[in-house]
């Protein structure tokens, strides 16, 4: 094994990410090559020390803030649901009442029906457009 090949394997060896065969080949090289053995020693020490680094922790108050974020998000979604579901039911009921009402002239009912159909067609067209661009948007996965 050449030093160049060995060097690139040293990190993976330290991390236990080498196959047994590669690890064995590297061990043999390290016994013979002082330069690579030194690199191995230095990186091993580095890895050890990295694990002992300390960073400030989030305190309880900060964690609470994060939890509040989730609660407010939950509130937002349940708010939308509470708004949408009864709204849809009420709209359906209204439409049913309108069409089953015998007092209204037929012409009004037809005009109103055409108006609703127009809205529906518009909505579907926009939705389709949105879905198409969403599919083609190669950056949509960039942000999570």
């Amino acid at each position: 094994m050449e030093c160049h090949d060995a060097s690139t394997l040293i990190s993976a060896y330290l991390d236990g990410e080498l196959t047994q065969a590669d690890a064995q080949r590297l061990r043999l090289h390290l016994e013979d090559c002082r330069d690579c053995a030194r690199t191995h020693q230095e990186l091993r020490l580095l890895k050890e020390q990295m694990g002992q680094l300390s960073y400030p922790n989030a305190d309880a108050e900060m964690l609470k803030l994060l939890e509040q974020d989730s609660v407010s998000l939950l509130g937002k979604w349940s708010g939308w649901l509470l708004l949408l579901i009864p709204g849809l039911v009420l709209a359906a009921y209204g439409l049913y009442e309108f069409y089953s009402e015998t007092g209204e002239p037929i012409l009004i009912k037809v005009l109103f029906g055409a108006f609703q159909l127009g809205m529906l067609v518009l909505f579907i067209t926009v939705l389709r457009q949105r879905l198409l661009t969403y599919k083609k948007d190669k950056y949509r996965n960039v942000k999570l």
Partner: protein
Amino acid sequence: MKTDGTQIIQGALQLAMQITGSRDEAWDVLQAATVKSLEHRNAPARDDQGYRAWFFRVVHNQAIDWLRSQKKFDRSADAELAGESDDDPEQHFSLEQRKMLLHKALNALSPEQREIVCLKDFHDFSYQEIAEIMDLDRAVVATRLHRARLALRDRLIQQRFFTGENDGVS
């Protein structure tokens, strides 16, 4: 919040600090990532084994967005977390001095190099998990990690980190 959940949050905050090099920014990144993770449709369950890596990936993306917006992507971190250096008459570095030297050397790396070393040696993710978090190939993770460690080692050699002699270079 469960203990496990808290540990993941603490780790994620540390990762954000490691990438951004700033405690305040790290906090903003973590908050944004938390909201994103809650809104995300395909989020794994919190007690799922892969949740930690998945959440770190969200934090990674959020932090990279922040770096891009700051145009700091290729620059080294501010020295905010590095601590102050003190001259010490002792021949050998104390543990605290070693930590400080290591912080300084880490902060001199690019955010990407710092992140990959931290994900492995501080957060103890496997190469496969790092590949998922950073959206890289596993083989690329291996080479970049090794290169980052060598860069870190070279900076530490300049600081006499391995020989332990303090001749005022720090």
